[in-house]
């Protein structure tokens, strides 16, 4: 029996650092989430409504980018080294990408937090989508660019290590976790290119005053070129954990290794050419392009549906190994006391519910009803906020002992924590979905208007507010329980004997059952690039053709406020 830290002490240190960075982001993000909930419902307003957007920017960036990506970088490093049974080629390089990611985050954080502090003349209240002409301080864009380059180097590290392994093992199949890391890395290179171009070529020079203006539709399209696929950057590591760890903690084996590979290849191929589905309501983009994005999005359902099957089948196998019987009776035989298992299972369950509301979003026509409403917030708190975040928290209860050598302080608190998250999210997300249906917008400090009231289809707004507040508070409590449990565990002593061996689930139908072509990553990458070119060349060309590369104008906000013009149109007040 060896734990990860015994086998790979140097890598374990890096993974610890990525996890701790992720947890700091989670803590701040959850606190700000609670502030948002209280502010929107007018229960308690700690900051001015104009500053609410700084809070929301920090919540979005820290949770959607920092927490998730730092954590998954650690998970990928674990999965790659474990399955190759080989350390990284040069751990100094591993520290380099970690350092770059931290440096980038810190730089971006300065103006993000600066906006909240009087006397600091820097701000980045542009939310995590930073649509131009809203303008942030240059440090925000610079930090973002460095962070993304850091993730690219992380990918290079994984590929480099894989190639070294390949030289040592010329004839072996790529182990499944490594296969998943590599497909995800290739996909990430392809999809993060969009945001990198938007930031480095347009927004950073523009914020420095080197460019006078940018094309808002173009930078927005480049953002969404990355903005939808980033969802899969969160989901693919989550799926990896469902494939390789969940069956293991359930006591069984993965149903089929080749099908898991098919799923990841499908993600590589289909995830990127879908981003325009976030722009169904944008003027300046032809309906045909929106239609293509819609079709691709629907096909992207396939890998998720296949995953649902394989994961449930693998868990059932585990239950039967543990002595479960009957049509449903086997469910009782699962290790429900184990927060690792239960957390992942509940996360998966919520993801199924999210699939339903996601289909509504993806339908171009129904989307008109819910676009940018609170419904959307309800939806992605089920996906990234639960399927991903809860899986990551649950898996921490398994991985933390592996990388520290210290057992979890309390598994019962862990169980309470994952269940609290599930219940809190049920309440918060339900109220958000319903609010959105009656038109309540997202990203709004005060969704209370002078001229009209929202009327839910049934029940009252007060009730929906209560749902959001109670749910949000439970979620915050859950985050505190999680971080507290991690913290107390870390203060404890090492006890390697009580920690299970570092391993992942074997497959009932192994890699040797799958055709070799599955492992031909170059082929899949070429097809993926072709698909992206096919779906994006025309719309991007059309946007540049219409508005010009640097766009038809619109002045930056808030750095330069040309109040004169706005007043001439008939507005008395310009809020700077």
């Amino acid at each position: 029996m060896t734990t990860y830290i015994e086998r790979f002490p140097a890598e374990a240190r890096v993974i610890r650092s990525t996890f701790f960075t992720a947890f700091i982001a989670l803590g701040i993000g959850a606190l700000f989430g609670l502030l948002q909930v209280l502010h929107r419902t007018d229960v308690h307003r700690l900051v001015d409504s104009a500053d609410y957007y700084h809070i929301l920017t920090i919540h979005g960036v820290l949770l959607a980018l920092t927490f998730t990506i730092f954590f998954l970088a650690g998970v990928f490093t674990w999965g790659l080294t474990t399955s190759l049974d080989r350390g990284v080629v040069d751990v100094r390089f591993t520290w380099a990408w970690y350092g770059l990611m931290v440096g980038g985050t810190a730089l971006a954080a300065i103006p993000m937090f600066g906006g909240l502090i009087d006397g600091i003349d820097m701000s980045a209240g542009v939310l995590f989508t930073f649509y131009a002409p809203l303008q942030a301080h240059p440090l925000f864009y610079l930090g973002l660019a460095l962070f993304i380059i850091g993730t690219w180097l992380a990918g290079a590290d994984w590929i480099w290590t894989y190639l070294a392994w390949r030289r040592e093992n010329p004839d072996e199949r790529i182990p499944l976790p490594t296969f998943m890391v590599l497909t995800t890395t290739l996909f990430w290179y392809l999809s993060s290119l969009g945001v990198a171009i938007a930031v480095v070529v347009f927004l950073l020079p523009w914020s420095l005053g080197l460019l006078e203006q940018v094309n808002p539709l173009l930078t927005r399209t480049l953002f969404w070129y990355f903005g939808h696929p980033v969802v899969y950057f969160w989901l693919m590591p989550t799926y990896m954990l469902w494939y390789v760890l969940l069956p293991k903690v359930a006591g069984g084996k993965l149903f089929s290794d080749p099908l898991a590979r098919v799923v990841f290849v499908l993600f590589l191929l289909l995830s990127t050419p879908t981003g325009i589905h976030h722009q169904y309501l944008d003027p300046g983009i032809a309906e045909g392009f929106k239609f293509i994005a819609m079709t691709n999005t629907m096909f992207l359902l396939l890998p998720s549906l296949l995953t649902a099957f394989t994961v449930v089948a693998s868990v059932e196998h585990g239950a039967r190994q543990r002595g479960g019987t009957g049509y449903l009776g086997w469910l009782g035989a699962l290790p429900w006391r184990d927060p690792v298992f239960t957390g992942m299972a509940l996360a998966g369950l919520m993801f199924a519910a999210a699939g339903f509301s996601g289909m509504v979003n993806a339908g171009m026509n129904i989307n008109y009803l819910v676009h940018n409403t609170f419904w959307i917030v309800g939806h992605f708190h089920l996906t990234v906020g639960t399927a991903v975040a809860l899986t990551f928290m649950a898996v921490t209860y398994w991985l933390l002992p592996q990388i520290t050598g210290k057992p979890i302080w309390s598994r019962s608190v862990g169980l309470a924590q994952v269940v609290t998250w599930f219940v809190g999210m049920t309440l918060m997300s339900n109220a958000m979905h319903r609010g959105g249906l009656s038109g309540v917008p997202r990203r709004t400090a005060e969704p209370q208007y002078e001229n009209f009231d929202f009327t839910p289809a049934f029940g009252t707004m007060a009730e929906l507010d209560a749902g959001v507040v109670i749910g949000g508070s439970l979620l915050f409590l859950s985050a505190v329980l999680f971080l507290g449990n991690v913290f107390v565990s870390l203060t404890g002593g090492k006890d390697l004997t009580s920690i299970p061996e570092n391993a992942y689930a074997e497959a009932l139908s192994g890699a040797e059952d799958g055709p070799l072509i599955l492992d031909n990553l170059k082929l899949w990458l070429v097809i993926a690039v072709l698909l992206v070119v096919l779906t994006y060349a025309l719309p991007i060309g059309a946007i540049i053709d219409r508005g010009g590369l640097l766009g038809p104008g619109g002045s930056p906000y808030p750095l330069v406020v040309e109040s004169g013009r706005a007043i001439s149109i008939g507005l008395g007040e310009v809020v700077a």
Partner: protein
Amino acid sequence: MNIHAYEKLWLAASLVLIVLFIGSVTYGAVGAGIAMVDDAEGVIDPDALDEDDRFADPRVEEVGENEYEVYVVAGQFFFDPGTFEPIEVPEHSQVTFYVTSPDVIHSFSIPGTNANTMVIPGEVASMTVEVGDPQEYGIVCNEFCGGGHHDMEGEFHVVPEDEFTLEADE
């Protein structure tokens, strides 16, 4: 590769489901005639809206029998018309909104209905709706547009035929 029989069944069912989804959305978008916001309108210089005869004087205009066009400027943090005076149209008419922005990205959204579009500087969003019986609606901006975003609202009134007058006729 050996695929389990149940898995094949599941795969087939998934594909059928996906095709059904695409079919229903296509029907909804094309068949039922809900026009999408698209690239039908040309680009516009957001710094020179006052030189454009639609937006120099944003207004409601009658263009045919029971057909109206509404030109709206959505700026930080107002709709004109909409915020300073309600947009008014007569009941049971067909209304086309043209909305553009002089500054940042906004939205023009009538909560609780599917009248909802992004407003992007440089682009003109057009959207046609059929209005029914008299009713007062709100208008909100649901795309974050700056510190006063939550104050950006307006009113859209569908009024009885006999109470309707165009600004120009007053």
